[in-house]
């Protein structure tokens, strides 16, 4: 029995292990980055999914900016009020009330209400729509073509293409803004979570032309504007627009709309 051999082996492995342990221990102390401890706390309070909706590179970027003072404590759209309050407590600052916003697709032109001008087989990417004949196979050139780029980009699985048109799930949407950025028609806009009546059309064409392409498009008749008591509705370019700062959610516009393009959420 080669005792010395066995002992040597044990000793060497033990020595290597010990050396590594000490070495790493020293290294982790020596190479410690002096971060503001508040930054770690803020980072822990943020949701942590690095969506970039705040405009900073990931949650760590936002944490650094908040601690430095560049960003307000309620900068995270995903976390909303709770996170703003938590971050505010850490930073010792009062958080302003944040209004929760959600995305809304201003188009309801699905397969039922519109038709296809031609059969399209090719790349289903909304950013390619400028290369597709007539801006897309759907009859309405302003509307959602349903190619799904917004669905692919959403990190929260909140927007889906249903029956040829994109639909936002209000509960899942965290207002990060990625779908807004990727829609080439600018069909998606941020509306307050509590907004009850929304114009579901973006067609700037004249009435008859709109009716030709889609049965529930806004024809710009102006009935909603005439009947709105809060003067929240304006009609511009044959399209109704609701100003949510003024809107009191009375619902008269939706009632009066002949094409039923103002939806109630």
């Amino acid at each position, binding site marked *: 029995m080669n005792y010395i051999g066995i002992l040597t082996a044990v000793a060497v492995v033990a020595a290597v292990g010990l050396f*590594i342990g000490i*070495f790493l221990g020293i290294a982790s102390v020596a190479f410690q980055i002096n971060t503001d401890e508040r930054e770690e706390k803020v980072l822990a309070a943020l949701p942590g999914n690095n969506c970039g909706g705040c405009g900073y590179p990931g949650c760590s970027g936002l944490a650094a900016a908040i601690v430095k003072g560049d960003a307000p404590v309620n900068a995270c759209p995903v976390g909303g009020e709770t996170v703003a309050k938590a971050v505010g407590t850490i930073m010792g600052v009062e958080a302003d009330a944040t209004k929760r916003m959600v995305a809304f697709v201003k188009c309801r032109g699905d397969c039922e209400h519109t038709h296809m001008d031609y059969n399209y087989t090719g790349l289903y990417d909304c950013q390619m729509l400028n290369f597709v004949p007539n801006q897309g196979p759907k009859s309405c050139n302003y509307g959602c073509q349903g190619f799904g780029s917004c669905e692919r980009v959403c990190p929260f699985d909140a927007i889906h293409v249903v029956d040829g048109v994109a639909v936002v799930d209000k509960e899942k949407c965290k207002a990060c803004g990625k779908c807004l950025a990727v829609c080439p028609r600018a069909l998606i806009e941020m509306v307050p979570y509590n907004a009850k009546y929304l114009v579901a059309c973006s067609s700037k064409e004249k009435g008859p032309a709109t009716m030709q392409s889609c049965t529930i498009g806004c024809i710009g008749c102006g009935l909603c504007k005439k009947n709105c008591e809060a003067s929240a509705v304006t009609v511009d370019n044959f399209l109704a627009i609701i100003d949510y700062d003024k809107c009191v959610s009375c619902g008269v516009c939706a009632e009066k709309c002949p094409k039923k393009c103002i939806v109630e959420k």
Partner: protein
Amino acid sequence: MNNYIVQLIVIALGSSLISNVVLSQFLGLCPFLGVSKRVKTAAGMGGAVIFVITLASLVAGLLYEFVLEPLGITFLKTIVFILVIAALVQFVELFLKKYLKSLYKALGVFLPLITTNCAVLGVAINNVNLEYDLLTGVVNGFATSVGFAIAIIILAGIREKIEFNDIPKPFQGMPIVLVTAGLMAIAFCGFAGLI
């Protein structure tokens, strides 16, 4: 001296192209298939691998030559090498985080993945089996990792191109990548006549 350098060059060519670590020796398949979706990430991974493998082959070579061999306990090489490699990667991560922040941001995510990468341990053990001296071992390690980087970047480029192609349903996802890798392996076989 000249002979030695020629030998080094031959070994370098051999490790990087002819018996490419991924396409011939099948070491390092997991990151090869996993991190090759975009050329940018593939380049980052390649860089990280070059860094780690070169360093690891240096340290492992040193340990073997000055500790294991004199004491006659070369059978411990597996254990010692893997411990050292894991520790090295950890150390590199800490070092980068503190002193080379931009490099850390580019490579940092991949470093823990490289720890259990077959390629690192494979290179270290190859150096021992083929009885290379220290410099040859380091050059071998460097060339191997360059070969890995080449392979992964090419695969990422091809993957980006075929991303939107009309691939049959059963082959979508991993199978088509494997077929691509197989075709690349056939192509790399053509290097066999280089030396």
